[in-house]
């Protein structure tokens, strides 16, 4: 789901127009990153845990077809129906079929980035079917007709007043009452009604276990459980990379997930679903949507290890200052910038450039994905495939031409320094993209090379 058709840079420019809000967004996310550090430092084996998680995921990806078959077999034995979807359209159609067959009117959904990726809400809406998102943050953005801006904290871009205004309009809360406790209570009452009357619950999947045919869903609010245990049908949607071999491996991932995401030692609820309850139907939709293609790209395969903790978002200096919506995709941030060009290279060619390549994302990743390296590699793929805009392409070509000719490079450097000294307005103007948001540096009197030649004798 995208809220704008603007490129990342253009959408970010809109976002940062409100400077205090940009600073607030930056500080809020950094605060979450610090909580993650505290939680990580609380475990002496943290680095070992990351290594185990990374190795378990490497192993799983290298045997994924067999694990999926084992999972399917065991889930079937447990009385769960498995569906396979090659893409988002397939995924939506499967869910729509279940809805139609059972003549369902009332649907509650717990947070699932996969259903966002597949555009399920819009698809069902077009068919005249409304879903109610039940995660508080997701409900807030849903009422505002916005997309989540963060995979763990969907409404992190909003202030209390925004939520208060939204709830006043839709839930008739007191105008101007910005108390989070009061607003959460209003949402609790509103959503309880939805849970109780729901006929169908859709949830995501955090981990699917080949050995048992079961799956684990993690929430702090308990909304996935309220929906799944009340409704007569439960559909769980998962990208096939959610697979892990055995139940005992859950220990590694449950120790890492919440600590990396919010700094909590574990989410409030880690629910293990294996069989439908008496009289209930349980379905699992296993989705590809480009994942098998990514599995075949050796440089980008690692991105399928992601457990969606968003630690890379919270630490990213670009995400924190540009906001999630500027990434115009369901999964924003550094990891989204690797996953989305795989889904649509043309539409998402801007994203791998939305990074400083500082490597902070890779340093915090609980499954050791080489995120910044992959962003750098995507840039090369996108340039060679012709998916970057002309300005960037011409600029890079010109740069390559100059850098390959030392004489020309020295001349250009000299000319540039002279020009900056004599005609500063030639660079300090709106036509120069480097002048945006920053002052140009004072030109040095001589180049490093000149200084070196002069001083090396001494």
């Amino acid at each position: 789901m995208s809220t704008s058709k603007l490129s990342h840079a253009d959408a970010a420019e809109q976002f940062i127009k409100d400077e205090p809000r940009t600073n607030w967004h930056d500080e809020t996310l950094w605060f979450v990153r610090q909580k993650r550090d505290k939680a990580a430092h609380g475990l002496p084996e943290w680095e070992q845990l990351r290594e185990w998680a990374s190795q378990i995921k490497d192993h799983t990806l290298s045997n994924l077809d067999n694990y999926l078959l084992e999972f399917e077999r065991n889930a079937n034995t447990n009385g769960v129906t498995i569906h396979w979807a090659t893409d988002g359209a397939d995924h939506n159609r499967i869910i729509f079929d279940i809805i139609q067959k059972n003549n369902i009117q009332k649907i509650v959904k717990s947070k699932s980035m996969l259903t966002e990726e597949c555009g399920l809400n819009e698809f069902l809406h077009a068919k005249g079917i409304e879903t109610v998102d039940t995660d508080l943050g997701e409900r807030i953005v849903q009422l505002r007709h916005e997309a989540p801006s963060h995979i763990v904290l969907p409404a992190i871009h909003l202030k209390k007043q925004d939520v208060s205004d939204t709830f006043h309009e839709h839930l008739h809360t007191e105008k101007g009452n910005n108390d989070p406790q009061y607003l959460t209570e209003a949402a609790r009452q509103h959503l309880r009604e939805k849970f109780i009357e729901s006929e169908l619950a859709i949830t995501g999947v955090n981990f699917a276990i080949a050995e048992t045919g079961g799956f684990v869903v993690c929430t702090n609010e308990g909304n996935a459980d309220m929906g799944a245990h009340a409704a007569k049908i439960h559909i769980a949607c998962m990208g096939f990379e959610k697979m892990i071999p055995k139940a005992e491996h859950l220990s590694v991932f449950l120790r890492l997930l919440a600590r990396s995401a919010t700094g909590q030692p574990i989410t409030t609820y880690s629910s293990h679903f294996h069989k439908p309850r008496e009289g209930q139907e349980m379905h699992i939709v296993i989705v590809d949507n480009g994942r098998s293609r990514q599995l075949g790209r050796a440089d980008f395969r690692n991105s399928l290890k992601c457990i969606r903790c968003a630690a890379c978002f919270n630490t990213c200096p670009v995400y924190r200052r540009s906001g999630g919506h500027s990434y115009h995709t369901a999964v924003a941030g550094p990891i989204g910038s690797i996953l989305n060009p795989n889904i649509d290279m043309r539409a998402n060619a801007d994203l791998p450039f939305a990074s400083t390549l500082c490597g902070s994302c890779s340093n915090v990743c609980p499954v050791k994905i080489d995120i910044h390296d992959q962003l750098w590699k995507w840039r090369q793929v996108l340039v060679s495939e012709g998916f970057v805009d002309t300005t960037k392409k011409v600029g890079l070509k010109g740069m390559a031409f100059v850098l390959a000719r030392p004489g020309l490079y020295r001349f250009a450097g000299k000319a540039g320094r002279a020009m900056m000294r004599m005609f500063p307005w030639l660079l300090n103007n709106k036509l120069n993209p480097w002048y945006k948001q920053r002052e140009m540096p004072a030109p040095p009197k001589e180049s490093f090379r000149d200084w070196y030649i002069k001083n090396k004798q001494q």
Partner: protein
Amino acid sequence: MSARETILKAITANKPTLVDLPAIDLAEVIQYNDLLQQYKTVLQSIGGGTVELQDLTSLKEELQTKKANGNFVVNRIPALGEVEESIAHLTATDLAAVETAYLEGTIAVAENGAIWLYESQMGNRLLPFICQHLVIVIEKKNIVPTMHHAYQQIESDKEGFGVFIAGPSKTADIEQSLVIGAHGARSLIVYII
């Protein structure tokens, strides 16, 4: 070709060479000198409360008083008196009126405050989530250091459903302000005997 075959075929063609699973060595994992103290500290830090008891007499009295006062309480602990079996057939509307549920936990985890519950201990899958307040009783000897130890002791697929619960329902979706009591239980008190 069906979607299933298409996907599996693509995965088989694209997967990398088989690599081994790592061995998880518990000697590498954090040790706690005092499991009980660690458990209490962590649970309190995530919004839950703990009470240490010699036996269940006082809890039994509390339950009886609540019942006598007409509160809708559900007991699932044999040691506290009659166990409610009828809740298995109650609807979500009925259960939404439950004020307090008393449940027995299997294993408690010192590193994160979580307690494992089997479906049979809940009596109804919805109960621990939809009740307003949750009381869980655990035995001191069933506190384990970490999640690795917990999974060694539970059979997560033994029943149709099971859950680790760590504290009351909470959210921080409005400006990162922590609010206890989102959709699930507004409070969690763990009695340790």
